[in-house]
């Protein structure tokens, strides 16, 4: 070892001897685990601590204001909010709540300030998993908190407040779980980049999923059913709505999904079934709809005008590869300024003429009618759907080129899927023949 290297090593050793004790003194204490039994006082927490709620009913309400705390509930542990206010309020970032069951939430049902099972204010990066709260006014309220994740929620409301409400919460993720019986299943406002995936929103009084003033939200793989109104994405841009099932919303103002004043939305592979209106578009400029299934709705797709005074652009939409089946009316356009492009959709009413067998029908199909447009403006007229006079009118309209709404024609519709059709027709024809033969035989033998 040369002299220079030896001197350098000595300096390094001396430096280490001086600095090391100071460094050791700055190391924080390791996170502690507090086991909290019912009636134990709330412990003093340090960042990163873990609190384990033991089995039994713990009296709240609580406020958690220490960053990075992990609150883990054992099976059978219940937090009782005492019937006033929010049961658990979190105001620090990085908190994790796991497996908590909450009861005894206050009665305030304000959409923006409800009494909830859990409220997260400024709790950036919070993670809530497997939260269970039944019979509560509201489930989770998130406000001013970025990148919050809610997973496996099991929330059941009393119909007055929202299941999940989020305001100013960019990057919110809601994954899996169920919200049932609330005013709105999930209400998100100014939650840019939010993701709602795999959530079941059932039987909510108003909206199942309701997203407002949000850029780039994604709704994926959710099931929304049996609500009073449906789901809505409004006043935002770049929404992606994919692989959802939105079904069974019936009533004067009910729909599967509403896009209102929402720019450049993409709707792909959703199933909209058994709703009064499957998909309602109001001033939805630049919307792209691909491969959605619209089945058994009153009106499959309704394009309506923006409310008076709205400065939003009219709806411009491209519908590609849809499957329209069993709707009273497939398409109704009540907005004279709407621009609509239909391409490669399958309509069960389209004459199945495909001589070259390429799966594309040989004739264009107009999926709407004057009656459908009128019924869109005066919904009471839907009562006349399937009436003989209306059927005759529509047949006449379809037969006379001058009467057709050619602007809303699909130039190359697809042949509808034939799932189960052959069997049904075969059995049907057989039964029909047997019935008629039997009855005819009875008559011929002198039935009286």
């Amino acid at each position, binding site marked *: 070892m040369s002299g220079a290297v030896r001197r350098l090593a000595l300096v390094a050793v001396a430096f280490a001897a001086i600095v090391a004790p100071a460094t050791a003194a700055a190391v924080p204490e390791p996170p502690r685990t507090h086991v909290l039994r019912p009636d134990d006082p709330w412990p003093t927490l340090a960042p990163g601590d873990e609190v384990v709620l033991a089995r039994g009913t713990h009296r709240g309400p609580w406020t958690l204001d220490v960053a990075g705390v992990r609150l883990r509930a054992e099976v059978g542990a219940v937090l009782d909010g005492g019937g006033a206010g929010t049961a658990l309020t979190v105001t620090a970032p990085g908190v994790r709540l796991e497996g908590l069951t909450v009861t005894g939430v206050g009665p305030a049902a304000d959409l923006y300030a409800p009494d909830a099972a859990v409220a997260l204010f400024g709790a950036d990066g919070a993670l809530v998993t497997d939260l269970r709260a039944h019979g509560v006014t509201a489930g989770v309220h998130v406000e001013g908190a970025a990148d919050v994740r809610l997973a496996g929620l099991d929330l059941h409301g009393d119909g007055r407040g929202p299941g999940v409400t989020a305001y100013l919460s960019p990057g919110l993720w809601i994954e899996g779980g169920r919200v049932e019986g609330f005013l709105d299943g999930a209400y998100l406002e100014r939650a840019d980049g939010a993701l709602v995936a795999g959530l079941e929103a059932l039987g909510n009084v108003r909206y199942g999923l309701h997203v407002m003033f949000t850029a780039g939200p994604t709704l994926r793989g959710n099931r929304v059913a049996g609500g009073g109104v449906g789901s809505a994405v409004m006043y935002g841009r770049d929404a992606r709505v994919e692989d959802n099932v939105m079904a069974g919303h*019936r*009533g*004067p103002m*009910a729909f599967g999904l509403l896009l209102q004043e929402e720019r450049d939305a993409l709707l792909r592979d959703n199933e909209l079934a*058994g*709703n*009064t209106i499957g998909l309602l578009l109001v001033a939805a400029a630049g919307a792209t709809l691909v491969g959605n299934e619209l*089945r*058994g*709705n*009153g009106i499959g797709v309704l394009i309506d005008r923006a409310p008076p005074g709205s400065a939003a652009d009219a709806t411009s939409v491209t519908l590609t590869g849809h499957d329209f*089946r*069993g*709707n*009273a009316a497939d398409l109704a356009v009540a907005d004279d300024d709407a621009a609509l492009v239909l391409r490669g959709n399958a309509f*069960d*009413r389209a004459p*199945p003429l495909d001589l070259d067998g390429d799966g594309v029908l040989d004739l264009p199909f107009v999926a709407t009618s004057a*009656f459908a447009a*009128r019924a869109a*403006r*005066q*919904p*009471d*007229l*839907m*009562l*006349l*759907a*399937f*009436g*003989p*006079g*209306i*059927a*005759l*009118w529509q047949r006449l309209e379809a037969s006379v080129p001058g009467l057709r709404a050619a602007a809303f024609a699909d130039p190359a519709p697809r042949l*509808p899927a*034939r799932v189960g*059709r052959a069997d*049904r*027709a075969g*059995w*049907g*024809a057989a*039964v*029909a*023949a047997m*019935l*008629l033969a*039997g*009855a*005819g035989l009875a*008559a*011929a033998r002198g*039935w*009286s």
Partner: protein
Amino acid sequence: MSVPRPLSFAALHRRELARDPWTWAVAALLPLTALSWRTLAPEVGVMSVFGVAALLLPPAILALTAPRLARRSTWAFWGSLTLRPAGAFRGAVIGATSGLLLPLAAGGAAAAAVVGAPAPAAAALVAAVGAIVVAYGALAGLAAAVTLEPAKAVALGAVVWGVGVVAYEPALVALAVLLADRPYEPWLAALVLAHPLELARLALLRTLEVPVFVGPTGLLLERWWGQAAALWAAAAALLGAGALTVLAGAWLARRSR
């Protein structure tokens, strides 16, 4: 010579209509036309069958029954006996209607099978076809009693069919458009509820749970009916047909005097 009772007239006409091959041809029309809707969803198929039944069956019913009920010489003969003409004619109307009922109901059932309707929907369709038969059988009776000439009776019935089936719904739409800025809903509700076949159609829609009950009128009807829409429709069809039959008998009796 014993004087036949009204029931004998019913049996006579029932047998005559049920054995008429044209009755069965008309019945076969329903499943045959239904073949073109076998690719549709069952609900749409059932409603389409009802629509075509409402369009096709009334003229056929009129053509089959009115000439048989409007035989002036026959009724003059029976009227010369001690027979009560009103009762006899009502019996004839009921018999003719019931003679059509089974074949056409069978046709409706076959059509329901062709479109793949589940059992409740098929039953509702058969009931709705029955309502058409009962209503237009009674109407044919009244037309026959009023005219006592087959051609005129058929023509009169056809006019009622044209107004009551072909033009009725477009007229309701026109009325709603004209009154769009006014509260037209009560008128719409009244005009729909006053028409037995419209009632039958709405009951069918309700049974099939087709989501068309929108707007105040739809909401009102849905709440008012609850689950008993089919009963309301059946009662309306039977009452309407009964009233027409009673009126037809009374008209013939007046002519006989």
